[in-house]
């Protein structure tokens, strides 16, 4: 599903160049669960953002589902991301002024799904994640675990093939963290590809493959 070859990412300012990723080669199969580990500043998030088409590599190739992403326009990248990728963040990134229902509904609106269909899909997802009783609440009225479940619901509502999770358990206690991980396991068992950035060995253990990054290079693949 994902094929990366000789990929580099360099951040430049007027006087300083910082290499975040250096000549990475990596392939991730469809339906796999991959954890990316490494210390702070090793390039985990940079890699995740490139995989999520939110940032561009400086050099190298990134092929997603057979499409070379380097040559895509901003609009094409937006559309590919919308149809293929779902995100889960450490800080949940829910819109405070929208209710749980409206937050989950957002990607469907942008995809042009009809209101009836949206309602049906949302009910199905929030039932499966056991947050239907919080449907009309606002993010600030929810606990961290509940917020992350809403974020997961929003992520999977469009049925993406690839889920990118950036430290999804970073802001959760261990119980809520485990609950979120089990949701990811369920999603993976349904055939979704999951790429997760984490610090925690305990949660990395849920993945089928662990990639260790250090100073922008892959130092170990297990």
């Amino acid at each position, binding site marked *: 599903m994902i094929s990366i070859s000789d990929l580099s990412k360099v951040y430049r300012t007027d006087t300083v160049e910082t290499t975040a990723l250096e000549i990475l080669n990596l392939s991730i199969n469809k339906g796999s669960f991959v954890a990316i580990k490494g210390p*702070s500043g090793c390039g985990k*998030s940079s890699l995740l*953002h490139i995989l*999520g088409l*939110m*940032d561009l590599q400086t050099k190298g190739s990134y092929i997603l589902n057979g499409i070379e992403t380097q040559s895509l326009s*901003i*609009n094409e990248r*937006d*559309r590919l*991301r*919308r149809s293929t990728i779902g*995100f889960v*963040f*450490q*800080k949940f*990134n*829910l*819109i405070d*002024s929208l209710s749980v229902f409206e937050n989950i509904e*957002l*990607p469907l609106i*942008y*995809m042009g799904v009809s209101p009836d269909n949206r309602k049906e899909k949302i009910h199905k997802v929030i039932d499966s994640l056991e947050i239907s009783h919080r449907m009309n609440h606002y993010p600030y009225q929810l606990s961290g675990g509940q917020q992350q479940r809403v974020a997961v619901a*929003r992520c999977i509502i*469009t049925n993406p093939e690839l889920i990118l999770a*950036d*430290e999804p358990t*970073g*802001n959760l206690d261990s119980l809520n963290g485990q609950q979120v991980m089990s949701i990811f396991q369920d999603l993976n068992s349904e055939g979704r590809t999951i790429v997760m950035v984490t610090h925690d060995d305990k949660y990395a253990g849920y993945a089928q493959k662990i990639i260790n990054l250090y100073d922008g290079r892959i130092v170990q693949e297990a």
Partner: protein
Amino acid sequence: MLFQNIRFALKMMKKNRISFGIAIIGLSLSLVASILILSYCLFYWNFDKSVSSQSEWYRLRLSSVSSEGEAVHESGFYLQTAGIIIREIPQIKDFVIMHNSFLDINLNCEGKRIAINDKCSVTSNLPEHYKMRFIYGNKDSLLVDNSSLIISKRFSERYFGDENPVGKQIMVRDRPRYVITGVFEDLPQNLHLRADIYDLLPTSLTSVTEPQEYLLRGHIRLRIPNPKDVSSVESAINKMLANNAELSDSQEKKTVHLDQIRRIHFIGNLKEDEPTMNSMSVYAVMGIGALLLLAALLNFINIVILSWQQRRDEFAIRRSVGSLQQDIFVQLFTEYVSYFFIAILLSGSLYLLVAKVFHKLVGFYTNPTLLQEAFAILGMLLILFISGFLSAGHFSRGVISNTDDRHKKRAIGVKSILYAELAIGFLFISLAGVISIGYYSVINHEIGFEANNTLQYRYLTMVGSKNPMFYDSNALRDRIRAIPGVLYETATNFSVVTDRLDMDSRYSETALELGGVKNAQQIEAYVVGTSVDFFTKRKLPILSGALPGADKSNAVIVNQTFVNRFSQAESPLGKTIRTPGSAEGEFYQIDAVVNDAWFFPTHIQMIPMVYVLTPGQLQFFQITYEAGKKYEVQGRIDDLFEEISGRGILGFRSLDVTEEFIRYYQPDRIYVTLTILFAFIICAVSIMGIYAVSSLQFYRQLKDIAIRKVCGAEFSHILFLLLKSYVCLFCVTGLAGFLGSYYLAQEFFARFALPVGYPWWVLPICVIILFLVVFLPLYLNSRKAWKTNPIQYLQSE
């Protein structure tokens, strides 16, 4: 430290070029516009305020009630009566009399013809009253006798160049009439009864002890130092008029009012002295100017504060490394002053560029005095320091304790200003569109007669004299026709171009009887005279009937308005017209109806006209010349009229018909120009306002936008997100602006008697312009939001 702060400010400006560019240019434009608006308002505001001790002076005004029950005001008062009352009432300490006279014709100086069109005969204290500054002449011997003449610098330069003309003799034909005794600096344009030439009013006019049969009228000013005496002086004059009918020339009851000199310009409904601007309009223009400045200032502050908000982290770091609140204040204040100062410099340059053009457009020019310039600079600096102090103070405190409540209050204020500026913006956009179209249709209105390349000459004779002297008009016409370059000519006893229907232009409403002796219909129409060829040469369409032959002496022609008003039910052809009380056989018969012709600007209601066909005794000659030969023909006709002036008539006057028509619409043109100018400026300021507010909104929504982007939002979704919060603004301001502009456009159109249709099709165009004004800055910000990489607002580490 200061230098470092300024350098930092310039660096920040370079970093946010677009935002600061919009802020600084917008503020500069508003500063210039406000200064120009202020100078425009001051021009009217200071009307007649340049006279000495102006608070002690009052103008005499007469009012009466017409037969229709309407109040009629007149600024002219009886000169002889004034002489009597001034002597009788002790509270009056001084007086000034001005009397416009046009009888000075056939003048020359050292063989050079001198045309005096606006001479004013005045009392000898006028130079002191008007605080005239003399370039040449002895102050003690300016207006000493009836031959003394003082002239303006402009007039002097026109006839004598740089030469000192004092002592030169002005002759009436070959007799000495005047001696120039002084040359004064041109009077300010905002002064009543400004003239280029003044001579001494004959003291005999005001020194009479008994009222005379023929009462001349003039502008009378009285000095009453004690304001408490004003009402008693008014009562005393009214009592004198009531008890001595011979003091006025009318049987109607006339009441005297004393108007303060500084207010006379704004007093309306005055016969022969209509104000060029009313005080409410001056207040309104001033209010708009102030709002424009306030809006631009707030927009500027918003953009600067936004740039500070984006640097919150930097200020937090500065605080953490030991910077005090006052250090941050000093830094912010220096930055603010630097940006504002650039705007002031830019506005100064812009002002120098546009001031002359603006003054040319509005038709006046006032040299700002050093004091005014100092006040303007002081005002700008005051605004700069107060706004900078408040903004920097507010923000430096906000860095430490920012509350939602403060944000909300500020947002409400900013939004209110945005609503006001957009509403005014739409008002001006639509008003500019509507009245420009209206004005265009008025000035291009078919005047109903052929008047291209036409000069009108009239010879002057003694008005009111029992035996006025006339020149044989047929002989004169023959001579005019013989002049090379003259295509054709016509003659009338009324002016074919005038902005006043009065005796001077030979329009007077006459009581008539329409129909037979028995059951005659009493009507009032304007009886004028011309020869029958006037209708063919000037191409007035004949609507019914036929032009009478030369042998029919009692034939008259009426216009369409006459028919509409008096004979709509049946054809007027063949009906008789007579003056009431005339003998059995004395009547005219209507032979033809011609189309209406606008011999006056369309401000004046079309009048019912009766053209009496009198080939002799016609004083007005319309001469159409070959294109390009105006000055050649004009010189020859001048010579001809100069020649005949020596044979019994007093002299002549001439004008260009097209130029006169253009002059009549000058105030309308100024209104249109100003409105268009306002529309442009307000559009620029509105764009700046929306840009500032949407930038703030965009900044606060960055995380939302980033999340939406991650959820699949495209550019159109982000644009719509920003746009939807402006829908209400767009609709409300559009509606309010439209209502305001509709009202003002109707007021503008009411200036014309000619019905001007409201061009509704302009409105959709104005709505599109308003939409673009709102859309453009939102589009720019949406593009910026869309291009922003969302990850920097969503990162967790």
